[in-house]
């Protein structure tokens, strides 16, 4: 791309993304990449989902109608649900930001051990297996949870933490703040240290420096995270259902889609409306960033300077981090206790402890661990490839209607898992693997693809944010030195985006590891079941709570190790680029 650019570095004017720069012809390779991405989205998302959602737009005999939508808008309950969803999503995003922004800033700005703690423990809230997490939260914060039992005993009061919409907001914000934490951390790291130096030379310090220079430069990462939290909470089903809140859009859709023997088009109507709204929210967040440039040129080692904390400052930071982590990790503590408990009922702590549940689980879950790792790493790998490609097509090419790829991919956030799974079964009905009579839909590939589609938006947001921070002049430099387009992407662009790509991979991976609704429907043999399915299976019965929690703990550990290892990979990749940066500084 021969974009004419002014002098490198800084917040200078650059042709806006999303608008053709000049009448440059689109290269055939770009067309091919776009076709592949579009093909994937069509085959594994648009067509299967469309096959199911079709009911929302037709009469019983197949003639098109908007009658179902009219019926939706005439219901007071739907208006109420919409407003509730909007309220919960907005407030949750704010609280998630309040938790995440200080944590992200600490890790990047200060040189102290707490940073590693945040990096490792900060993603754990996302790895909360379904049901187990809900049970654990109730055991800790619920109306008869440890906290309230102790409060009642000591002070005679109880806190309705898990009641009503506020309960939903509480759970959602401590569950999803890592989206902001991860993306913002990466974005802060990518800021050119020269920006900070320049600001300080001009006399800018303290809060002013943070609010006027550093935070604005990291805005793509923040918006990527916050918009994900917003849309995710807006579309989230599990938390409200567990807390008994039905008057939100996602539960309303779900309750109607999953009634025995009643095909209610209203459920699909709600889903379609949620998709449209989610896309609108994403488009809006893109508009916020539009017209500004966040790219800085210096990379690798030249990021904002780390400082040492004064002893008092360190103490305060540790206290804050400790308090936040204690709250956000209490469900994990609950799961751990539950997995070791013999009986835990209406008491602050279990009556007695046992290791028997782990013994039960180890007998039959090794296959499940392997399956989870296989499906999730493939799905997350696919997601970052798609994510980087889509981000590149949007910001570095003049392909017509390229924004649509982003929107389609993002729409999958609002597609209920069960709808996607039914769509898969319906669209690929009767199609067998070539040369055998094994159904395509009864292979594990379908589960993996469902994960990839459902978790694509996470990876995509991270990749988009990462690319927005890379200045195009670096690629131009590479190209003017004779590198081909592909080589430039491989050797310059992707390494520069590595942090963001990793954040995307990790988010996709760990959230796929706890995906449930599509998993249940698409699992067609116990041998191909992942851990989330095993947990679900155990949690269906009274005697299975302990083993279910034990498997939940294993899932958390396995995914945490996976996350830790992938961080290691990125550190190594980045250190490969460090020497050149040092030379540049020298």
């Amino acid at each position: 791309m021969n974009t004419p650019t002014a002098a490198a570095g800084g917040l200078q004017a650059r042709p806006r993304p999303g608008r053709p720069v000049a009448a440059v012809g689109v290269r055939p390779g770009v067309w091919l990449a776009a076709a592949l991405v579009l093909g994937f989205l069509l085959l594994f998302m648009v067509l299967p989902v469309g096959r199911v959602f079709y009911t929302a737009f037709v009469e019983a005999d197949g003639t098109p109608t908007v009658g179902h939508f009219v019926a939706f808008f005439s219901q007071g309950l739907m208006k109420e649900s919409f407003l509730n969803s909007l309220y919960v999503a907005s407030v949750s995003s704010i609280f998630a930001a309040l938790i995440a922004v200080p944590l992200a800033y600490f890790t990047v700005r200060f040189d102290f051990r707490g940073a590693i703690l945040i990096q490792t423990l900060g993603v754990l809230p996302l790895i909360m297996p379904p049901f187990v997490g809900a049970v654990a939260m109730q055991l800790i914060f619920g109306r008869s949870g440890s906290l309230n039992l102790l409060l009642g005993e000591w002070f005679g009061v109880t806190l309705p933490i898990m009641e009503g919409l506020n309960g939903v907001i509480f759970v959602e914000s401590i569950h999803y703040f890592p989206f902001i934490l991860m993306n913002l951390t990466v974005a802060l790291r990518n800021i050119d240290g020269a920006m900070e130096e320049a600001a300080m030379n001009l006399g800018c310090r303290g809060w002013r420096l943070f609010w006027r220079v550093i935070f604005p430069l990291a805005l793509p990462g923040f918006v990527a995270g916050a918009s994900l939290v917003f849309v995710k909470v807006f579309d989230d089903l599990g938390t409200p259902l567990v807390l008994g809140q039905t008057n939100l859009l996602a539960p309303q859709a779900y309750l109607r889609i999953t009634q025995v023997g009643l095909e209610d088009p209203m459920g699909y109507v709600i889903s379609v409306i949620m998709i449209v709204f989610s896309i609108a929210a994403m488009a809006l967040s893109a508009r916020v960033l539009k017209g500004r440039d966040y790219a800085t040129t210096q990379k690798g080692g030249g990021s904002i300077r780390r400082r040492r904390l004064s002893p008092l400052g360190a103490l305060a930071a540790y206290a804050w981090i400790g308090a936040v982590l204690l709250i956000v990790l209490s469900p994990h503590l609950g799961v751990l206790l539950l997995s070791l408990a013999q009986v835990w009922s209406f008491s602050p702590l279990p009556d007695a402890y046992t290791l028997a549940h782990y013994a039960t689980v180890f007998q039959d879950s090794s296959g499940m661990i392997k399956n989870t790792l296989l499906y999730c790493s493939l799905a997350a790998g696919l997601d970052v490839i798609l994510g980087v490609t889509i981000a590149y097509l949007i910001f570095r090419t003049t392909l017509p209607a390229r924004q649509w790829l982003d929107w389609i991919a993002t729409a999958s956030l609002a597609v209920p898992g069960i709808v996607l799974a039914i769509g898969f079964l319906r669209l690929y009905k009767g199609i067998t693997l070539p040369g055998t009579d094994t159904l395509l839909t009864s292979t594990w590939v379908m589960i993996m693809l469902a994960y990839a589609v459902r978790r694509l938006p996470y990876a995509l947001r991270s990749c988009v944010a990462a690319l927005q921070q890379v200045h195009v002049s670096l690629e131009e430099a590479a190209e003017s030195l004779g590198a081909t387009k592909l080589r430039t992407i491989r050797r310059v662009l992707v390494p520069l985006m590595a942090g963001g790509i990793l954040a995307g991979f990790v988010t996709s991976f760990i959230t796929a590891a706890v995906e449930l609704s599509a998993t249940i429907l698409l699992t067609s043999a116990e041998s191909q079941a992942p851990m989330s399915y095993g947990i679900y299976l155990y949690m269906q019965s009274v005697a299975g709570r302990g083993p279910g929690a034990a498997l939940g703990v294993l899932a958390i550990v396995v995914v945490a190790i996976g996350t830790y290892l992938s961080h290691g990979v990125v550190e190594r990749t980045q250190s490969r680029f460090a020497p050149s940066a040092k030379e540049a500084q020298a």
Partner: protein
Amino acid sequence: MFKRMLVASTLAAAVFAAQAGTVTVVTSFPKELTRIYKTAFEKANPGIKVEILNKNTIQGIAYVRELPVGQRPDIFWASAPDAFEVLAGQKLLDNVAALANKAAPAKVGNYPINNPQGLYLGQALAGYGLMWNTRYMAANKLPAPHQWADLMKPVYFGHVAISSPSRSGTTHLTVETMLQGEGWDKGWHQVLQIAGNCAAVTERSFGVPDGVNNGQFGIGLVVDFFGLAGKYSGFPVEFIYPDVTAVVPANIGLVAGGKNADEAKKFIAFAVSQEGQQLLYDPKISRLPILPPEAMDGKTPKGYPNPFEIAKRAKVHFNSDLSESRYNVVSALFDQTITFRLKELQAATKAIHAAEAALAKTPNPKAAALLKEARDAAFTPVVDAGKVADREFLAVFAASKKDAAVNKRVTALEDHWNTSARQNYERAKALAEQALAR
């Protein structure tokens, strides 16, 4: 027969070599139960493997429906009778009348154990009852309940949990039993008062026993095996059957277009045989056999409930045709006026309880009149007995909602119920507060 078997076996040898003799069972039952059956069956039938696919009932139906003939699982095994009706309606079940256990009685109470058309068989019996957490009850100083009607008492406000008829076939049955036992208007009065005392209407039927086990709720309306299994697993919970209860079978059926019908039939026959029925006594399963205790070879544990006695004791003669005719109406009415308006219903109930307590101390005719008005506003169903007997009205709810005109009518009605319920509860709350102020 021989020829068909020959063909089948050649086919199996040629094509399904890897899967020969594998019976695939789709079930919503927990692992403890399925594992015991799988082990016992495989031991009794060497060479046949059982593959258990655990899915919740709704996903199970979708899974069977979306697979092509010849690739479907072989057996569907689940609690909710309505799920089997749906499968039968979509021609997804084969006749299995020949596999029924001849020793099983035709009916439990007034409910047929096996499907009269022979499309599915009763495999275990389940009754609905009350389960409570003894620690919770002690801490909150609550007496143990005995009957459904006990749950209307003010003392239980905020301590009860129930699932919704639209989510759980057994809850639907319990609600319908109350409606048939007391009559539509009086029955709804009762249901609404119990619901007003509820802390939650859970989305999954398992959410109720789970919440009672961990002490989140005090009392739950649950299927017997949930209560019994919790007790036998060491949780501080108790379970009783109230006098008015329905006993119904959990079922097993042969899926049309499965892979291995012959082996599957053996599994079904095993599950309803005396040997298979005895497995239900395992404490981890704790379900009731379809065979009367005298046909169980003396293996019945001491003090084990006898479903046939319980069903006999029940005063209600359950009319399944009546239930069927208004199935969707009851579900929708419950959701629109209870599940989605629980907050307002709770507030009204609380205010009524408060006014009642004050009135009991200092009688006041004006306040009593206001209170009566409040109770009527809160606990009268928005659809009266006359309307629900109207065929035309029922027809609207039986028609396919895929039709936009039908959908519009149904949603308009639902919206009307929802709004009226909200207004009624708010009015009841205001009236009760007035009564209290006097």
